[in-house]
């Protein structure tokens, strides 16, 4: 299956995001309890769902890598986790802003939803140092895949643990009844969720394109370094170590 082209994904993603944010401010009703500040919900919750799904997707790609030893799965898993961390930063920042506006505090330590998200986020923040602490590309990919699988499995367990918690201030969005949102709010929320998910896919495609181009450049550089005849090295050909480089 061919991956969708970046030039196709980017405009669709931008248009969907514009439509979603337009409906947040011009279509969705103002919340009777929280008022206008509830509009933060439409950017905060979709980002949280997409970031957590990205961590799980990274775990699934880790399994695929361990099964097939195909480096493309390793690259996809790396990109999914990298982007999920960036979205996670967005979740924590927008959540803090919303908490300050709604609860009067930037952060509440005894709230299971907030703390559990922070734990998952910090767990995956250690993925990159772990990965780049290993020189050998094969070992790097293998260890990173194992980490991604364990971390990815931790996400749904964490979600269930929070659901079982009795006391929470943080509102539930995805309940057994589908939440208590009226139709306009629900439609806007689903539109925002779709737009943020498509944005995630588009950004993944952008980073994958960059990583593949960087890989091609490294291979080309290496083949030139190997094929240059003995003698003085031309100034245009940089000296490279012959060993395979790990993903950076």
């Amino acid at each position, binding site marked *: 299956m061919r991956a969708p082209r970046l030039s196709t994904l980017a405009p669709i993603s931008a248009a969907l995001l514009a439509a979603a944010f337009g409906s947040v401010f011009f279509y969705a009703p103002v919340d009777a309890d929280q008022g206008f500040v509830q509009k933060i919900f439409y950017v905060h919750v979709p980002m949280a769902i997409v970031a957590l799904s990205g961590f799980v997707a990274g775990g699934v790609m880790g399994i695929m890598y361990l099964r097939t030893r195909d480096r493309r799965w390793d690259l996809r898993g790396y990109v999914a986790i990298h982007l999920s961390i960036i979205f996670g930063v967005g979740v924590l920042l*927008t959540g803090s802003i919303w908490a300050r506006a709604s609860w009067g505090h930037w952060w509440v330590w005894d709230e299971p939803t907030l703390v559990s998200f922070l734990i998952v986020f910090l767990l995956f923040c250690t993925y990159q140092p772990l990965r780049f602490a290993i020189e050998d590309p094969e070992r790097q990919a293998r260890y990173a895949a194992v980490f991604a699988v364990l971390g990815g499995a931790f996400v749904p367990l964490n979600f269930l643990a929070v659901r079982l918690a009795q006391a929470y201030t943080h509102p539930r969005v995805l309940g057994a009844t589908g939440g208590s949102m009226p139709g306009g709010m629900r439609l806007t929320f689903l539109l925002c969720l779709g737009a943020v998910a498509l944005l995630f896919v588009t950004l993944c495609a*952008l980073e994958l394109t*960059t990583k593949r181009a960087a890989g091609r450049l490294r291979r080309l550089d290496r083949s030139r370094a190997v094929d240059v005849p003995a003698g003085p090295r031309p100034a245009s050909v940089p000296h490279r170590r012959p060993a395979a480089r790990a993903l950076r």
Partner: protein
Amino acid sequence: MPALPLDEAGRYVAAAYVVFVVLIVVYVAMMATKLTRIERRLAALEDDPAEPRR
């Protein structure tokens, strides 16, 4: 807590959406710069007559 008045709530909402937009714009700008640099180097290497044929 009672709902904030619109002028105060508006600042928080604007801040949250600005955070989102800034994160995405900074990320896309960094990736696009990196990709452009790599593609320029790739084009230079491929156009170089010293490049061995494979």
